[in-house]
């Protein structure tokens, strides 16, 4: 419900504000002040990661690490199925008088590949999930409104109605934004 409300407010909001900061510490303070004043931040574009900015904006902690764990377990499962089927079920080879008739007895020599399969699936799965979730893919166009945001500028993007825009601009100015424009 809250999400829908926010969407409605955003579509009603007609004024776009770009607040540009040059210092990450000032940006962090500015964002906190904007949030304290009840102003919803549309997006922030940063040239490098700023520690604590995600919590200041009010983002929930990403669950990608949980995904990685699930992928790892899937990888281990796949590896176990592969080796069990090939070396135990389908064609138990007798090597040096040590036939591989049981999965458990072969487990020790299966461990390295189980581990590798786990790491392989966790790493690739997590990166793919990240790229798809954030829609960072070959052929996608960038959306940062100002090219300086990959250089040395932080851009706070706000979409507000006239009244809120005025107070937001004041906060941006006071907190040390070096430039405020309307896109």
């Amino acid at each position, binding site marked *: 419900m809250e999400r829908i409300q926010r969407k409605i407010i955003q579509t009603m909001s007609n004024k776009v504000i770009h607040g540009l900061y040059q210092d990450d510490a000032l940006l962090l303070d500015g964002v906190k002040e904007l949030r304290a004043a009840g102003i919803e931040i549309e997006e922030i574009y940063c040239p*490098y*990661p700023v520690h604590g900015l995600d919590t200041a904006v009010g983002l929930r902690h990403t669950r990608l690490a949980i995904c990685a764990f699930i992928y790892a377990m899937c990888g281990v499962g796949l590896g176990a199925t592969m080796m069990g089927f090939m070396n135990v079920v*389908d064609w138990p080879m007798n090597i040096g008088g040590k036939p*591989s008739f049981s999965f458990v007895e072969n487990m020790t020599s299966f461990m390295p590949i189980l581990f*590798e399969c786990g790491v392989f699936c966790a790493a*690739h799965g997590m990166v793919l999930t990240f790229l798809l979730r*954030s829609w*960072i893919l070959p052929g996608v166009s960038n959306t940062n409104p100002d090219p300086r945001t990959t250089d040395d500028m932080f851009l706070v993007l706000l979409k507000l109605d006239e009244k809120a825009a005025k107070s937001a601009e004041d906060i941006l100015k006071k907190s040390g934004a070096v430039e405020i424009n309307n896109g």
Partner: protein
Amino acid sequence: MSNVISHIREPLVLGDRTVHDVTVDVAKSVEGKANKWWWICFGVAVIAALWGVLCITYTIAVGIGSWGVNKTVGWAWDITNFVWWIGIGHAGTLISAVLLLFRQKWRMAINRSAEAMTIFAVMMAGLFPLLHMGRPWLAFYSLPLPNQFGELWVNFNSPLIWDVFAISTYLTVSIVFWYLGLIPDFAMIRDRARVSGNKLYDNVYGLLSFGWSGKVRDWARFEEVSLVLAGLATPLVFSVHSIVSMDFAAGIVPGWHTTIFPPYFVLGALFSGFAMVLTLTIIMRKVMNLENYITIRHVESMNFIIILTGSLVGSAYITELFISWYSGVEYEQYAFINRATGPYYWAYTIMMTCNVLSPQLFWFKKIRNSFIISFVMSIFINIGMWFERFVIIVTSLHRDYLPSSWTMFHPTFVDIGIFVGTIGIFFTLFLLFARVFPVIAQAETKSILKEGGSQYYGNGSNATPVKEDGVTEEPGESEDGEDSEENNTDNEQ
């Protein structure tokens, strides 16, 4: 970014670079023209690479009979080179993954090039087992393919198959880790190209950057992914070289059948890898004009790791000797006596001198703080670690259980050509990388500028600007933080 400034450490970025300066410096090597030194290095590397390609072609056409290997010494330079290159690759992962987990900020200047080194080194390593198969077009036999395909399932009890899985996982995970870090840097070059109207760069780097915009949520996810990848890559790097060591340790050849092989190989790999990173970064800082980013502090930190790993490798050598005596097994004892005093004593001496004695010189501050000596030492260690693998492989094999089959190994021009060729291909790839990809992880370097930039340390010295009441001034805390930074820079100018 935290604003804590260390009181005791020297700055990580010299020359009072601002965030924008970092962008310009990193983009310069991609946007500008290559200098004379780059062309000279590239020319030499390409010639060596071509020689290697010729020798590889000859090997594939004629067979591995063109090498110096024989019935007794079935593994020689090929597997020596394989282990050497894999070992070199490990430092890249150590720098980017282990140092990330330990929050070592000095990794920022060198992690990108070290990761590139890892990828190219692992590619070179993979070439040797492939060629040693004799019929490289049948390399797919090592993949788990169905019986109907013309052969049996692979044997999962064999360390050689573990190798196939470990190395391919290591290579692909390293590439993913490396590329992920490159995405924001490609975006930076794309945006610069767009502003300057360079259509070609805009399109190429636009495609490479996957539409990266630097949104706060993307950065949060990016950091989480980097951290988890580092957590995965750390045990991976240990597993890879442990598995490589089991190619030997799981055999029954005296001199190979040793339980300390996995940790001993991993340490040796880190040791040689750091030596190669030193070699590359010291060349790179000159050729690419990165003196402000790759400083003596970076070199010293790497030298510390070289002392540690070198000493541990040295103690592994001595442990091996002791255990062979203590085991009471005469074959084992002979293998080690033969190594030190047999016909390959010179290889053993080179190994001991370069790997055990030479890194001890780094205990002296003057020596570890010199670019030239560090560079020379890194070459010595590279040579020493190559000989370590040669000693393990060739001296253990050349005198087997049956004295009538005792023999020596003599490399042919093809052996030498392929080895030199891989060095050539490696440097060709690395130099091309240094021209078209940002060689310094600029986004990460920018994030440590306040902690590591020399302008925050007061007038060029490593003293932190201190307020009258003795409290360290933190630029972000005061409202006029930014102004004071500028003043500070102005004063120095």
